[in-house]
């Protein structure tokens, strides 16, 4: 642990243990990981795997039973030395699944509330510009749509210019179109503010689109880490084109099966032989890949 300061690449050093009581009995959360500065990491896994708890531990909203956490060389938690930096002093951005906008304040007031003492207000104008909140500033949160609320929540999380942005399934309640739009905003601020971002997500296409690095959790432990695209495809395909989608329908015709796959919001029909199709079920997540060397290119618009 001593060489954190020497090794500038390792920004976040995580070694945290906490006993959790869940509906399925007791579970020990035990996470060891180091994350690089400026990278976009996604935490993936079933519900109840301990993903949200991990984020709360990073934010200091929960205390670990034992462990160590340092960010950019600064120790945030060290149970041996009895250090626990309160969430107020960690300067992180946190976006909650249910937005957590303050209902008694307008959009503008929500953003102003997030300012640190004596912090100039210019950051708010900058965020309003980047995240297109100009029209919404005087609205009350209750009058906003889900996508609008989450844009405000994203902007509000960035007001204090955090280095670390934590996103707890921020897009799971939104429809597809809104998701894609919000993903662009998230990517933009991640790059613009040189953030280290940790996202919790279940959506494979979202993870592949956004993240540099992925951690899969199960029962409180990290079971796999790596590059998201290869983790979902198990390194078996070497394709030029690949998309992930969901099997919607399968129709058997003689020796082939026509599989209808929902990719994004488009339906695609793919021919599969019946042996391959045997392994598929409606609702499966699948990867559609092509090794074609002569694709047709059409200019759009």
């Amino acid at each position, binding site marked *: 642990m001593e060489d954190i300061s020497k090794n500038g690449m390792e920004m976040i050093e995580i070694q945290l243990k906490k006993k959790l009581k869940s509906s399925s009995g007791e579970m020990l959360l035990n996470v060891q990981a180091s994350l690089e500065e400026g990278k976009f990491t996604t935490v993936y896994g079933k519900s109840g795997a301990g993903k949200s708890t991990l984020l*709360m531990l990073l*934010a200091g*909203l929960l205390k670990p039973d034992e462990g160590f956490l340092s960010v950019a060389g600064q120790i945030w938690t060290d149970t041996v030395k009895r250090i626990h930096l*309160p*969430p*107020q*002093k*960690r*300067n*992180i*951005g*946190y976006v*909650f*699944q*249910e937005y*957590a906008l*303050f*209902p*008694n304040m307008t959009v503008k007031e929500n953003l102003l*509330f*997030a300012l*640190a003492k004596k912090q100039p207000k210019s950051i708010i104008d900058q965020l309003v510009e980047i995240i297109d909140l100009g029209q919404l500033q005087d609205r*009350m*949160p*209750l009058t906003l749509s889900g996508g609008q609320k989450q844009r405000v929540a994203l902007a*509000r*999380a960035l*007001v*204090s210019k955090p280095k670390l942005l934590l996103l707890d399934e921020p897009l799971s309640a939104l429809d597809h179109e809104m998701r894609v739009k919000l993903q662009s905003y998230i990517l933009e601020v991640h790059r613009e503010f040189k953030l280290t971002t940790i996202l919790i997500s279940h959506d494979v296409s979202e993870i592949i689109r956004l993240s540099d690095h992925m951690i899969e959790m199960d029962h409180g432990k990290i079971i796999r880490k790596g590059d998201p695209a290869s983790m979902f495809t198990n390194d078996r395909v070497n394709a030029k084109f690949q998309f992930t989608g969901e099997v919607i329908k399968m129709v058997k015709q003689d020796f082939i099966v026509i599989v209808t796959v929902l990719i994004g919001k488009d339906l695609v029909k793919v021919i599969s032989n019946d042996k391959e199709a045997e392994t598929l079920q409606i609702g499966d997540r699948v990867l559609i890949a092509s090794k074609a060397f002569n694709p047709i290119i059409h200019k759009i618009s």
Partner: protein
Amino acid sequence: MIDWNPLLITFKLASITTILLLVISIPLSYWLANTRSKIKPVAETLVSMPLVLPPTVIGFYMLLALSPSNAFGNWLDEWLGLRLVFSFEGLVLGSLIYSLPFMVHPIQAGFANLSPSLKHASYVMGKSKFLTLTKVLLPNMKPSLITGIILAFAHTIGEFGVVLMIGGNLSGKTRVASIAIYDEVESLNYGAANTYSMILFGITFLILMMVYLINGGYFKKWNGND
């Protein structure tokens, strides 16, 4: 013409009790809604006891405890110059205990109904617990606060047993409206008893109807986002 003093004392008592209860109940309810302490069930039981205990029991023990012939009452008398038995101050103390659950329960429920992420969001923005309480939590539970205020006020107006035990029936000092009614009936003065009763009936009806109107959202303005 009836003596207006009992009504004035009643409303003065109810107002002072309500204000003090609000100050006491906000931190108490906040603690009850958030704590995982082992003494929480004990504290909750104590707060709720006045709901089921006959008011005369509370009044009786307070009378014993506060009487200057006892150690505690004597200490209050000698050191603070407070004689709480048969005085208006004593009535306030009795009412605080008697109406405590009516203020604590709605406010505690209000805290419990707020999503924890509101609090968390404020903390990660660097805001202290106190600032979070005053700027984020309390403004978003106005209906609970208003319900607590109104119920505690109305319940104090309806007090009888505690007041009779520790306040006695001193005209112009501790004789509240509910006792004045009893007094008038005892001396077969039904007309005056009826006037007091009608006034209390009307006022409590209006006060309680406010609670239902507010909770039913008839005053949209009061429901958190005005």
